């Protein structure tokens, strides 16, 4: 089903990770990605991976959900791994035509796949534990400096909130329309490409009609409540940094420092 997509999904919960300030979560996700990129040996990479697994454990979201989001980009990981596998430098252990396998290549491909895995896991954690509205709010805060360049940060954030809010709604609607047309014998399961493409029209038309209807209703509702942009607007939920957030920042910094130390002091393959 369409609604089975986990990448970018939010799982409500009460864990420590859920409770972190959304701005901190976004910033730390970037810091984690940075840390992953500066890792230069297995030892530092293992430290990073373990800390990510620890955060996953703290998030109290079944590991199955993370694996599901991994599944969607498994192909990309495999592809890069295979490319790296055959393109290492140095003495080949095995050679067949232009294909040669080197220790360097094997190391490279393991390293790259681990890196990609960690990056997917960290971004999954971010979206799994942050509600779309919190996310948009936090992005608005983080982009504040851009308003110096006459960019209307509030409008961008509002559009993002609306878009994120309507993704599940439209997915559900698409699912419903698909069921309804299948019930009338629409040939969605057909192997024939032209038949399949034709079967999409009865799904897309109602979907667009309903998206426009919703947009119109929402615009009316916003106007009825005198919405006129960000100026002078106060918030119901005010983002606030609490000791837990400080703790998370320090934890991440500690991991970063451990990674830098092990990068310089340990054996480099």
């Amino acid at each position: 089903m369409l609604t089975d997509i986990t990448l970018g999904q939010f799982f409500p919960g009460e864990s420590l990770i859920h409770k972190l300030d959304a701005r901190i979560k976004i910033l730390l996700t970037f810091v984690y990605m940075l840390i992953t990129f500066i890792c230069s040996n297995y030892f530092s990479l293992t430290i990073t991976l373990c800390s990510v697994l620890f955060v996953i454990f703290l998030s109290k979201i079944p590991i199955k959900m993370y694996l599901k989001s991994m599944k969607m980009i498994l192909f990309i990981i495999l592809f890069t791994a295979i490319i790296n596998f055959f393109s290492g430098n140095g003495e080949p252990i095995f050679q067949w035509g232009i294909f040669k396998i080197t220790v360097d290549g094997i190391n490279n491909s393991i390293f790259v796949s681990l890196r990609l895995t960690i990056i997917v896991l960290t971004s999954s954690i971010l979206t799994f534990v942050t509600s779309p509205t919190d996310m948009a709010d936090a992005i608005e805060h983080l982009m504040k400096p851009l308003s110096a360049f006459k960019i209307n940060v509030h409008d961008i954030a509002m559009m993002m909130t609306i878009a994120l809010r309507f993704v599940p709604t439209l997915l559900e609607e698409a699912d419903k329309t698909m069921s309804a047309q299948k019930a009338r014998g629409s040939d969605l399961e057909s192997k024939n490409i032209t038949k399949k493409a034709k079967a999409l029209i009865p799904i897309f038309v109602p979907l667009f009609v309903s998206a426009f209807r919703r947009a119109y209703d929402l615009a009316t509702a916003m106007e009825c409540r005198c919405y006129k942009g960000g100026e002078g607007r106060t918030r119901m939920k005010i983002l606030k940094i609490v000791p837990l957030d400080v703790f998370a920042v320090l934890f991440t910094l500690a991991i970063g420092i451990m990674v830098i130390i092990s990068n310089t002091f340990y054996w480099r393959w």
Partner: protein
Amino acid sequence: MPILEVKNLSFIYGVGTTFQKTAVDNINLSFEKGEFIGIIGHTGSGKSTFIKQLNGLLRPSSGEVLLNGENIWRNSKKIRDVRFKVGMVFQYPEYQLFADTVYKDIAFGPENMGLNSEEINKKVLAAVDFVGLSHEILEKSPFEISGGEKRRTAIAGVIAMDPEVLILDEPTAGLDPRGRELLLSQIKTYHSKRKNTVILVSHNMEDIAKTADKVVVLANGKAEMFDITREVFKNSESLERVGLKVPQITEIMEKLKNKGYDINPGILTVTEAENEILRILGEWGKC
């Protein structure tokens, strides 16, 4: 042989996730050809999930659905044929209209069945008559007709496939009282003329009392009761336990009976109530 039968039917949403939910829980039922079945249940009791398995839109987590004695999933390539035989009108079906004319929209189902244009024309016109749409509307766009007409168009789109079993999920939801009355009587007419099986899902007890021969009561994914309509509505206490009520007129007559009047239990419609009251008044007149 029953036309439609379900055995140990269960459906679980989101298996293995935090959202896991058993929406249909081990249901065993069988429906005979030509019966008018009502399905009632609280919102979230699993009505929609249950009926979506009857035409193969959802594949049961366990158990089976037998159409004319044959498991519909025995050959999953043939599932489209099952959907032509078991027609399904969804809740708020007007949102599935897509074609540029009402006629073409109603013809979508029969076209998918691979019929020739003459047969399609016959089926479309017959369906249009059943739902009481005027023929002038056929060349209009489905987006410029009224809400009630859209609903009728969508229902005609399913009737036009001439299914052996017609399932309607809350067809009267959101209609005004007159539109609701009219649509119900048209469904009733369709049922008595075509002699087909009709399954009507509703949480409006009055609608069910007026139309159905037999009633299934769903609660928490389980089939709590399955009996002829009058018997089901005699159990006002068990119905209330699962968050449902008997029709208002049934309730009034029951209260009169509890006050000591000699009233037959299981009155379903206002007409029946009227006759019953007249009968009692007549008996009083005699003495």
